[in-house]
């Protein structure tokens, strides 16, 4: 038997009463223990800062042509497309000028905004819709489950990019429609994932115990089923942002996403593909930007997987 200490007023314990914040505080503490996650977090933070402060960082207007405009050195930019020291007379253009004489550095910087926007928003929408569908299917079961999941199977049967292309074709090209298309293709993933974890959680004894205590179904789903099944969804979501950014770039590359002259990485690649051999820098810099962004989200997602598991807590 454990020693019993009587209730004393002076050692009243401070209760940490906030269910969800507790989980996240723990997760944040843990995440700092995983080097790859820290690197991922740093990359994402830097990208977010760049996106927010794009007008301050960019040296030029991203859609303004520099042809015939003398730079701060007083010289004309030279023949476009060009790189500094390789045809670009004005050294202020860090990544050179594109075929229309626009400053590539500024375009890549501004491109961060649209890429992160598409990544975050499309995945958030997909998670919201997918989790609602998946949890409903898993928790209610029976016919509801069958109907929802068969529809998800149909959506999943299409190749993701083809489905996104057909949705954008119906809605009309544009970054926002590309976002909607991408998010629809991602819904089945999250529906399946959340259904699977709900199925495994709802048979656990602590859920039966909640029934025995008289908890309402809503309370059980929101307080017990969701917190225990959200971890794989968060991890998958973080990894999914990278894929969504890639898909958005692909759609823009095909001319269905961001429309010119909007600075978007896929769109920049698309414009420059004919100059691949004469001016490789035009595809190099936006390509590197996409790679770094996707890498950041993937590293962070892997770290989240470990950090969100309370059984791995060491404090």
């Amino acid at each position, binding site marked *: 038997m454990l020693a019993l200490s009587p209730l004393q007023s002076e050692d009243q*314990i401070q*209760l940490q009463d906030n269910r969800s914040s507790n989980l996240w505080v723990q997760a944040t503490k843990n995440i700092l223990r995983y080097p790859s996650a820290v690197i991922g977090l740093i990359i994402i933070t830097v990208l977010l800062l760049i996106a927010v402060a794009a007008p301050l960082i960019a040296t030029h207007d991203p859609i303004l042509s520099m042809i015939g405009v003398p730079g701060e050195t007083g010289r004309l930019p030279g023949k476009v497309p060009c790189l500094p020291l390789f045809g670009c007379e004005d050294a202020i253009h860090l990544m050179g000028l594109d075929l229309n004489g626009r400053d590539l550095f500024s375009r890549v910087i501004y491109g961060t905004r649209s890429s992160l926007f598409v990544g975050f928003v499309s995945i958030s929408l997909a998670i919201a819709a997918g989790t609602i569908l998946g949890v409903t299917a898993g928790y209610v079961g029976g016919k509801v489950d069958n109907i929802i999941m068969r529809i998800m199977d149909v959506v999943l049967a299409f190749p993701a990019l083809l489905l996104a292309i057909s949705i954008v074709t119906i809605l009309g090209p544009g970054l926002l429609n590309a976002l909607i298309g991408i998010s629809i293709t991602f819904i089945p993933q999250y529906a399946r994932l959340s259904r699977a974890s709900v199925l495994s959680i709802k048979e656990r004894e602590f859920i039966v115990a909640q029934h*025995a205590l008289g908890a309402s179904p809503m309370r059980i789903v929101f307080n017990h089923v969701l917190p225990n099944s959200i971890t794989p969804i968060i991890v998958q979501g973080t990894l999914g942002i990278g894929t969504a950014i890639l898909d958005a770039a692909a759609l823009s590359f095909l001319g269905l996403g961001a429309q010119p002259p909007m600075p978007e990485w896929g769109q920049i690649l698309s414009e420059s593909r004919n100059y691949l051999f004469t001016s490789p820098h035009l595809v190099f810099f936006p390509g590197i930007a996409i790679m770094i962004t996707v890498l950041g989200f993937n590293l962070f997602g892997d770290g989240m997987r470990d950090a969100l598991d*309370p059984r791995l807590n060491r404090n």
Partner: protein
Amino acid sequence: MKADNEVLLQVVNLEKHFPITSGFVFENQVGAVKAVDGISFEVLKGETLGLVGESGCGKSTLGRTILRLHRPTSGEVFFEGKNLVELKGKALRKVRRRAQMIFQDPYSSLNPRTTVYEIISEPLQIHNIATGKECVERVQELLNNVGLNHRFVNRYPHEFSGGQRQRIAIARALALNPEFIVCDEPISALDVSIQAQIVNLLEELQDEFKLTFLFIAHDLSMVRHISSRVAVMYLGKLVELTDRDQLYTDPQHPYTKALLSAVPIHDPLVEEKRRRIILEGDVPSPAHPPKGCNFNTRCPLAERKCFEDEPLFRQVSPDIWCACHLV
């Protein structure tokens, strides 16, 4: 222990059949697993009714069906004047304040993401019993009741041992001041040394809070220790229900005799002379129980009658209920 013979819980002809379905999208029922197959008994106020039987005989299903954690196929459960089988939604949740459950595996019966405080205070919040400071005090009082330090409130379940977790689960069940608790093998997942502690704790709490237990177990010696009456279950049916001492000294049903003969005796000389009744074969599938008496496939005494008629679960003497043609 049973000062008055007031009936707290009455189970009448309770059945729980799990359907076996086949087919894709359009499922149709092709059979049923008869986990609980027509069980009737009474639980008296203040007693501990032990429920024993082999794995898979339907003990846990019976306990859960009584508390309406499974929807019964048919039958009635009367508890404090209400028929639990007919209750739904809010009315059912209200009754849950009076009847609670302790689960077998303390590793899975506590939500790993919630603190001890959240676990124990949850029933209080569900039923709007206590809030704020009152709730904190009640949780600490409950922790003291089950022999845990009340400073543990902010810890998570994974920081505790199996025995401590089971104490937390007991505190949660006690939070609503229930009258009746179904203990579903509360000790079988624990170390032997811890088992005694938990059983003693349950007994202390029973005296303190005037609780009634339905104690499900397969450890016969532990059941003998804690129960006032014992029910023996085989393949979804009760075969015998008698006083504890009566059962352990003079079992009536051949299955009970075989079961008791398997209990080792802690004296090598007596143990050597112990005659065991070894049952042949396996328990039949509850999806296809045999015709006649359920036990006829393994019973050493089975007669022709046993293969034709199903024996009734009847009162053979004031204290003994038994389902056997030969008793």
